[in-house]
């Protein structure tokens, strides 16, 4: 019983760490991959919590489809986030 809780807490901490990495990362492509990793860990958590249906959905939608939608968005806008406190430049392709 205690080993499950330790594993659960480890996965939760890993998820929080990945989320913080996605927020502070200036390269938006890496940030999007980070959100995909969050979904992957979340689907493992759902599997541990005996919800395999939700785990399948999360793995398919969160890892693949959401990531590709964000990557298409990055292609159409800019890849690198601008530094704060600078005047915003127009988006260049």
């Amino acid at each position, binding site marked *: *019983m205690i080993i*499950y*809780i330790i594993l*659960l*807490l480890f996965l939760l901490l890993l998820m929080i760490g990945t989320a913080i990495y996605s927020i502070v990362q200036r390269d938006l492509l890496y940030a999007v991959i980070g959100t995909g990793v969050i979904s992957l860990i979340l689907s493992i958590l759902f599997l541990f919590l*005996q919800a*395999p*249906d939700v*785990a*399948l*959905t999360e793995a*398919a*939608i969160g890892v*693949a*489809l959401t990531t*590709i*939608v964000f*990557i*298409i968005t990055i*292609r*159409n806008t800019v890849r690198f986030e601008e530094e704060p406190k600078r005047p915003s430049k127009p988006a260049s392709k």
Partner: protein
Amino acid sequence: MKKILVLSLLAVFGVYLLEVLFKIDFGHQFFLHGVKDFYLTTSPDKMGVANVVTAIVVNFRGFDTLGEVTVLFLATTAMSSILYKGRHQLGERAVLFSSSRIVMTGSKLLFPAIILLGAYVFIHGHLTPGGGFQGGVIIATGFLLMLLSYEDYKVSHVALSLVESLAGITFASVGLLGFLNGGTFLQNFLPTGGLNNLISGGVIPIIYIAVGFKVGAELTGLIYTALNEKD
């Protein structure tokens, strides 16, 4: 001031989360009595469905599922109508990264396996975890892999809309056929068969196969339109 407020809010949230995590034992049955007993006994015994989640989603809450499919259809239609600049005039394919020969060969080998997995997931929706939505998304992922690896890979929009419409018509007409037995919309009218058999559960496999085809076609069309967006 604002940071202190945010930090205290987060602290309260964390305390409650930890309390919930430590108070309830892992896998503890929190709700001892209720409607779950009805679902857990009725779906294997009377309906012959091994996966209770599928029984709830397709049979007990079948009308909700029809609504969800409609919502997905409307969202896809709206996105396509925004991205289409002209009828059948698509722009250049978005080349995110040019793929090497290894990626192309690997995608070609993986593509049938992914399609097979998706078909397995939605055909066996009443026996194993998964169902129409999950299987459809897996199939769309397979098409996404091919679209990303091959720049000249084409998906026929006519075939996609044909599959989507036929699947939607199948779902609705199976629902309407429930009236024939003097029942209600989406009521089961086929023999349920034995538990854990592939052909069992009445109309549930038919509906989930229709949902799988519909979701797969919709999401494939959505990805194809978004990748070919005209600038």
